[in-house]
């Protein structure tokens, strides 16, 4: 029993950066911009948060600057894909290579350094509930914040005017434009939001998940985020489910290793999250071939007034 409770608690932690990143990417894609740069934005968020915490010890400042770093990197993608109408796939790849490269380049002096682990913050009373308490209510502040953000951003996307505008820009930008919406502005804001969330996800990795600086600590999580966006059919509520499902796979991989399963060939356990991603994508695409659930119709297409 204790094994499962700790496994599930670890699941929630491993799922948190995925959740933060996915909800942000959902906004970018809902507005019609595919941003494959999540891995790079996460890496820059992770480095910024780590360095800030290392030198100032101020966690709040570390989180804020990580969000700024994510936003700045995403701004490059926004400028290239929205203003310059660049190929979004190649631009996103460039952002990933840039973010990973820069975090390695600037983070070299940080290698092997540690920062104090952010203490967990059990919620009074709720944390006392058996099983559910230790899994969901004895976590750190960012875990609660990520769940809250997912709920709020779901509400905004589907229940408010603002969300409707965002979705219409991703579905039919020409129509949205003719209705007086500022397509470019909405897309910029959504891509920046994606950057902020990816930066926060990176901060979670370097401040909480592994508070020790290793180059390339994102280890493909940014790409899992992009897969989760599809898997969640561009819906923040389903992202919650998907993120914890994948968090579970990552946690399981660690726990199995910890109890000595697969010590002969740990590589196969390490493959789990990546292979699971492929399987999940295949399953969802079998369904999606018949009806393209939730995918924004103008995803990945630059908008040029009067040209579509």
């Amino acid at each position, binding site marked *: 029993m204790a094994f499962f409770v700790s496994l599930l608690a670890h699941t929630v932690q491993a799922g948190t950066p995925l959740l933060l990143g996915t909800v942000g990417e959902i906004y970018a894609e809902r507005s019609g911009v595919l941003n494959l740069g999540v891995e790079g934005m996460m890496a820059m968020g992770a480095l910024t948060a780590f360095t800030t915490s290392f030198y100032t010890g101020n966690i709040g400042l570390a989180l804020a600057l990580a969000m700024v770093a994510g936003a700045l990197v995403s701004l490059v993608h926004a400028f*290239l894909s929205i203003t310059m109408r*660049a190929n979004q796939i190649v631009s996103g*790849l460039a952002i990933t290579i*840039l973010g990973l490269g820069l975090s390695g380049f600037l983070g070299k002096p940080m290698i092997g350094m540690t920062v104090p682990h952010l203490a967990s913050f059990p919620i009074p009373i709720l944390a006392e509930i058996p099983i559910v308490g230790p899994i969901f209510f004895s976590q750190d502040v960012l875990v609660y914040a990520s769940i809250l953000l997912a709920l709020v951003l779901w509400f905004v996307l589907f229940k408010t005017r603002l969300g409707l505008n965002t979705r219409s820009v991703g579905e039919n930008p020409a129509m949205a434009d003719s209705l007086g919406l500022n397509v470019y502005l909405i897309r910029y804001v959504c891509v920046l939001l994606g950057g902020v969330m990816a930066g926060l996800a990176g901060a979670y990795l370097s401040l909480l998940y592994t508070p020790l600086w290793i180059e390339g600590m994102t280890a*493909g999580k940014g790409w899992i985020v992009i897969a989760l966006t599809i898997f969640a059919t561009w819906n923040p509520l389903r992202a919650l489910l998907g993120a914890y499902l994948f968090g579970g796979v990552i946690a399981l991989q660690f726990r199995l290793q910890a109890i000595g399963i697969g010590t002969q060939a740990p590589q196969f356990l*390490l493959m789990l999250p*990546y292979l699971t991603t492929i399987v999940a994508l*295949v399953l969802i695409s079998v369904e999606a071939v018949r009806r393209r659930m939730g995918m924004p119709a103008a995803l990945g297409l630059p908008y040029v007034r009067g040209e579509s």
Partner: protein
Amino acid sequence: MKSPRLIFEKRLTTSRTITIAVPVISLVLGFLSAAPLFLAVGVNPILAYRQVLGVFLNVDGLTESFTRGIPLLLASVGLCLPFKMNFWNIGAEGQLFMGAFGATAIVFLLPDSPAFVLLGSMMIAGFIFGGLFGLIPGYLKARLETNEVLTTLMLNFAAILWVDYLVYGPWRDPKGFGFPLTPMFPPNARLPWIPGTRIHTGLIVGLVCAGLVYVFLARTKWGYELKVTGESRLAAKYAGIDYVKLTLLAMFISGGLAGLAGMGLVSGIVLRLRHGISPGYGFSAIIIAWLARLNPLAAVPVSILFGGLLVAGDALQIGLGLAFATTSVFQALILLFVVGAEVLTRYKVALTWE
């Protein structure tokens, strides 16, 4: 209130000057824009640039640039095919690892065969293993519309871990002091040098492949079909082009050439299979293919240039204590400028105040 605005005017034709000038200028700008980053880590940019240029100014540096350009050339030439049809193969790195695995397996199977039999079999195995590995995402995309960016990327991780399993486990050299590598290949499994140089014969294979892919794209029915599909999948469908068959063909060749790059690495340079056999050649190849505007012949000089950039990265690492990631930063900045400037080949852009 006046504010700056970019005005875009569609170009009907793209002049040759623009086609060549845009990548060249992006290359220079991307390169120069790293200067503030050098300052940020306390390195004099002029010193850094001198190190980089120095690579191309002596025989050893050039030899090394050509050598490191070989896997880049093979992989990037391969990528021209799927990219032409808008199939985003991000998996050259994994396909390269599988090719290296296939070639090494042959060395274990036929260690005593004559060199030309062994090397020939290794090339074929490298090509087939890389190609088959490329078929997986190709099939999933063509049949089920599974996002190929993600499947090819995830398969990279799987292939790298698979090779790790082998070199940490069953294939580990018992006399290798526990390092994750196989025993050294016998001399008959090593690609010879081109006479008079210290560059292995993989370069000739790479040049031949670049020529073949160029002809394939420019002169065959399939090359034409790839182009049509890339411009509009719908139009291709109405024209009766078989998307499934075309995707599988493009991905088999693309994966195969990346696999051949892996064969060249184990047989021409490292002379064994080991952990981390490629420092990201498959990813650099994406940038090269794009910079070469998917022209396999243009990929030749760009690959050698990028090979030199990798050599320069080593020099910066050793000489100035910079991180291994320095070359990634260079490559990313160059790519960003190329991607951003690409619009200039399609539009006339003017900045106005209104």
